[in-house]
C-alpha cells in the first residue's frame, strides 16, 4: 500500500526532502545483503509505498505534495531532489505563494487555509489517484512557525473530511525550548489541540533532543539544520521502511499506517508518540563498532523507562515499580518520579540475526499502565535487511509519558504569556478569539492530565 506525504512549511519541506533521500538511498544500499528475493521484496514494497513510476523509464517520483506560502524552500527541495539522480518530486506536485505566514498560526489557519484549500486538495487528490491502494497520509510540519503549524492543522482537517477512512499520521517538529520563534508556544498549543481532533497519531521530534544527539552521539562540531533534519529523517525512515510481522512469516506488512495505529493508539485520548533509536552514531564511528541484540535492547529498555532521550547519560537507577503496588509516584515534576509509564510500545528491529533478538524485557507488565491487558502492549516488527548502513538497528515507537514534560512546559509558558495577553492582538487580527485560545488550553490540560494519570 502507498502513503501520500504532505510536506508543509520550511521545516516540513526540509525534513521531507531528507526523508525521501534516506529512503531511496537505503533501497539502493539494500542490494547485496541477504538473499536476492528478500531484498527485492523489500525494495518493491518501499517503492510502492513512497514512489510512483511513470512507465518505469524515469527516475521514480515521490508520492508527495509540497506546500509552503513562500517559494524559496520548495524550489531548493525540488532542485536538491533532482540532483540526486535516483528520485525526484512530481513536476506539478507543489503549491507555493509569495508571502509566508509570518509565524502567525491564525494567518495560516484562518486565512491561507481556506483560501488555498481547493488547490492543495487537488494536488493531494492527484497523488491519491496514482496509488493502487492508499494506506493513508503522512504530514510533516513544525509546531513553531505559521505555515507548517497553522496551514498544516487546517490541511489535516481537510484530509480528515475528504478521506474519512484513511489514516493520518502527523509528524511534528517540536521547537527548541528557546530561540526559534517567540510565539512558538502559542502556535504549538493551537496546533496540538486541533490536531488532537483530526489526526490519528502525532509523532513528535524534539529539536532540543535531536540537537543533543548531533552534538554528543554524532560528534558534529558546528551543527546545522541539515544535520538535525538528517537525524530526524533517519529515525522516520527506520519506522516507515518495510518491515515484517513477528510471527515468522517473511511477508512485508501491507498497511504501514494502519498497523501502526492499531498497535500504538488504543484510546483517542492518547495520541502522542515518541521515537527512540539505537545505535545512533557518526559514519566513521559506525565502521568500528559492533553490537549485540541483547546489549542494544537492554539500553533501549532503560532509555524508555528512565526518560532518556538518547543513549548517553541514561539513569540506570530507575526501575519499574514493584508489581502489586500502585505507582504512587505520578508525574509531579519532582526528581523522584522519573519512571516512565507506557501505554504501548512498538519495537522495530532491522539487520543481522534479527530473529535472535528477544523482546521479553519490554513485555514486563510493570512497564505499562494497569488497565492494559497483559501482552497486548508490546509489538515487535523485524526485517533482516539492514537500514541506512546500520548493521543492526532498533527503533522504539512509544506511546508513554515521554512527552508529558515537554508538553507541560509548552502549555505552561503559553499560559503565562496568555495571562498578560501579550501577542494576542496579532491572532485576533486574523480571526482567532480569546475563547479559541481558552478552548485549546483546556483541551491540552485534559491531555496532560490523562497522561499524568497513567
Amino acid at each position, binding site marked *: 500500500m502507498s502513503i501520500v506525504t504532505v510536506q508543509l512549511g520550511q521545516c516540513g519541506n526540509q525534513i521531507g526532502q531528507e526523508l525521501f533521500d534516506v529512503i531511496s538511498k537505503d533501497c539502493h544500499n539494500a542490494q547485496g545483503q541477504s538473499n536476492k528475493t528478500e531484498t527485492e521484496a523489500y525494495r518493491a514494497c518501499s517503492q510502492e509505498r513512497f514512489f510512483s513510476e511513470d512507465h518505469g523509464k524515469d527516475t521514480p517520483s515521490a508520492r508527495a505534495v509540497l506546500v509552503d506560502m513562500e517559494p524559496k524552500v520548495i524550489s531548493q527541495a525540488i532542485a536538491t531532489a533532482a540532483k540526486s539522480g535516483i528520485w525526484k518530486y512530481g513536476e506539478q506536485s507543489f503549491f507555493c505563494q509569495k508571502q509566508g505566514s509570518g509565524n502567525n498560526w491564525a494567518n495560516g489557519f484562518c486565512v491561507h487555509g481556506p483560501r488555498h484549500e481547493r488547490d492543495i486538495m487537488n494536488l493531494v487528490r492527484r497523488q491519491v489517484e496514482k496509488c493502487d491502494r492508499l494506506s493513508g497520509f503522512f504530514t510533516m510540519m513544525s509546531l513553531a512557525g505559521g505555515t507548517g503549524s497553522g496551514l498544516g492543522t487546517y490541511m489535516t482537517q481537510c484530509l480528515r473530511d475528504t478521506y474519512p477512512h484513511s489514516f493520518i499520521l502527523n509528524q511534528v517538529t517540536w521547537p527548541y525550548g528557546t530561540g526559534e520563534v517567540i510565539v512558538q508556544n502559542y502556535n504549538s498549543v493551537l496546533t496540538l489541540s486541533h490536531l488532537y481532533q483530526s489526526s490519528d497519531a502525532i509523532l513528535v521530534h524534539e529539536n532540543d533532543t535531536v540537537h543533543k544527539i548531533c552534538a554528543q552521539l554524532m560528534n558534529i562540531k558546528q551543527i546545522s539544520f541539515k544535520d538535525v533534519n538528517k537525524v530526524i529523517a533517519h529515525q522516520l525512515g527506520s519506522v516507515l521502511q518495510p518491515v515484517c510481522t513477528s510471527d515468522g512469516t517473511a511477508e512485508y506488512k501491507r498497511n504501514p499506517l494502519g498497523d501502526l495505529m492499531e498497535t500504538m493508539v488504543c484510546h483517542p485520548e492518547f495520541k502522542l508518540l515518541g521515537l527512540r533509536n539505537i545505535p545512533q552514531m557518526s559514519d566513521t564511528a559506525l565502521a568500528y563498532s559492533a553490537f549485540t541484540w541483547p546489549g542494544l535492547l537492554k539500553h533501549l529498555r532503560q532509555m524508555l523507562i528512565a526518560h532518556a532521550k538518547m543513549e548517553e547519560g541514561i539513569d540506570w537507577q530507575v526501575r519499574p515499580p514493584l508489581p502489586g503496588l500502585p505507582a504512587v509516584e505520578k508525574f509531579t515534576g519532582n526528581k523522584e518520579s522519573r519512571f516512565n509509564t507506557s501505554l504501548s510500545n512498538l519495537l522495530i528491529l532491522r539487520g543481522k540475526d534479527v530473529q535472535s533478538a528477544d523482546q521479553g524485557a519490554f513485555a514486563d507488565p510493570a512497564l505499562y499502565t494497569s488497565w492494559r491487558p497483559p501482552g497486548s502492549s508490546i509489538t515487535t516488527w523485524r526485517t533482516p535487511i539492514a537500514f541506512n548502513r546500520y548493521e543492526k538497528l532498533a527503533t522504539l515507537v512509544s506511546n508513554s509519558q515521554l512527552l508529558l514534560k515537554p508538553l507541560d512546559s509548552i502549555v505552561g509558558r503559553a499560559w503565562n504569556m496568555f495571562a498578560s495577553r501579550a501577542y494576542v492582538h496579532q491572532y485576533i487580527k486574523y480571526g482567532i478569539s480569546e475563547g479559541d485560545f481558552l478552548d485549546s488550553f*483546556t483541551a491540552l490540560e485534559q491531555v496532560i492530565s490523562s497522561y499524568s494519570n497513567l
Partner: protein
Amino acid sequence: MTQSIVVQVGQCGNQVGCRFWDLALREHSSINKKGIYDDALSSFFRNVDTRAGDEDCSGLSGKKIQSLKARAVLIDMEEGVVNEMLKGPLGELFDSKQFITDVSGSGNNWAVGHKVYGSTYREQIVECLRKAAEQCDCLQCFFLIHSMGGGTGSGLGTLVLNILKDEFPEVYRIVTSVYPSAEDDVITSPYNSVLAMRELTEYADCVLPIENQALVDIANKIKLMSHSGKVGAIKQETAIISGQGGVSVQEKPFDAMNNIVANLLLSLTSSARFEGSLNMDLNEITMNLVPFPRLHYLVSSLTPLYTLADVNIPSRRLDQMFSDAFSKDHQLIHANPKHGLYLACALMVRGNVQVSDLRRNIERLKPSLSFVSWNQEGWKTGLCSIPPVGHSHSLLALANNTCVKPTFMELKERFMKLYKKKAHLHHYLDVDGMEQECFTEAVSSLSSLIQEYDQLDATKRLIMEDAPRLNIAV
C-alpha cells in the same frame, strides 16, 4: 517572492535613502555576477526595458538586466537633495514620476509639513504610492525613512504614514526614524519630534529609532580604529560606515553615518531576499517582537562594525560579534539594553553561522540580560546564508527593550521646557488646522507610552509567580 517600497521623506530621509540604494546595488552586484534579474533583485528593483518605452519587464524573472529602477518614492519640500541625487550616478535608478518636490521647504515646522504640504500634496502622494504599488507583484512592506527633528521629514513623513495606513492597510509599515541629538541646532526639534512620535505610536507597525549622536560615535570609533593601525588593517569596504565599491565617488559629510542606516536596512531585509536555513520574513518581525501594539520601538545594533584584512580569524571573533551586539556602544541609539528589560529580542544572522553557534551564544548571553516574566525565552532567530559584502558573517540584533524610555523621557523634557514658555508656539498655531490640542494630545500620548514602559520596568526585579493553570476535573 515579495517586494518592498522605500519611501524617503525630507533631507535626511533622502540622504539616507541615497546611501541605501548605492549599497543595495553594491550588495546585489557582488552576489549576482551574471547580470540576470532574479527574485532577490526584484524585492527592491524593477527591471525596465528603456528602449521599449519604459516597458516593465519585472515579471520576467530570469531575464537579463536591462535597466534597474528603484522601488522608491522620494519626497522633499526642497529640491536640493533630490536634484543632486538625480544628477549623480544613482540618477538612472529613478524616473520623474517617482518624486515629489517643492521649492520652499517646511522651515523646521512640523505643522507646515503635516498640515500645509500634507493637504497640498496628498493626492499626488497617493498617486505616486499607488503607481509604485501597482508595479509590485506581491507588496509586503513599506520602509519609511525620515528624521524627527525637521519639518518635512517629521511632519510630511508622518502624514505619509497615515496615508499608507489608510490606502494599504494590509502592507507592513516599518519606519526608520532619525532622532535629533540633545545639542541639535534646530530649536524647534523637540516640538517636531513629539508631534511626530504620536503618529508613529499610532500608525507604524514598528519603528527603528536611530540617534544622530550614536551614529557619530560609531563612525568616530571606526575611523579611530582604521587610523591607529594597531590591530591590523581594516578591510575598508567592510566597515559599516563605508560606501567603497558603490557607484558614488565623492564622500559627502553625512555619508559615513548614513551608510550605517543603509546597512541596517539591508540586513533587516536580507533574509527576505536571500535563502537561508532558517528564513525570517519581514512579517515575522512584528509578529515576534511586538507583544502589545503600541510598544513597537525596536533598538537595533549591527556587528561587526568592520572586518580586519587579516583573514586568519580566530573563532573567538564569532562569539565577540554576539557579545558586541548587546553592548551599549553598538546600539544605534544611546541606550543600554543590559540595564533595561527585554520584551523580546531577535537575532538576524548572515553568512557562515550555524544553529549551534546561535544556541551557544544565546545560552552564554542570557544570564546577563533580563527578560519580562512571561517571555523568558523571548528569542527569535533567522539564518541567512548570504553575508554582507566583504564579510564572512554579520549580525543584526533587534531588541524590544525598555531602554528606549530614557530617550523618550529626555525628548519630553526638552519639549516641556519650550512648551511651558510657549516658545515658538505661534509659528505652529498660525498654520491652518493646527490647534493647541495637537500639542497636548501628542505629549499625553508620549507620557502614556513612557508610563507603559515604566510599568513593565517595575516588574523587573520582582519574582513573578506563574499564572495558576486551568484545573481539569478528572
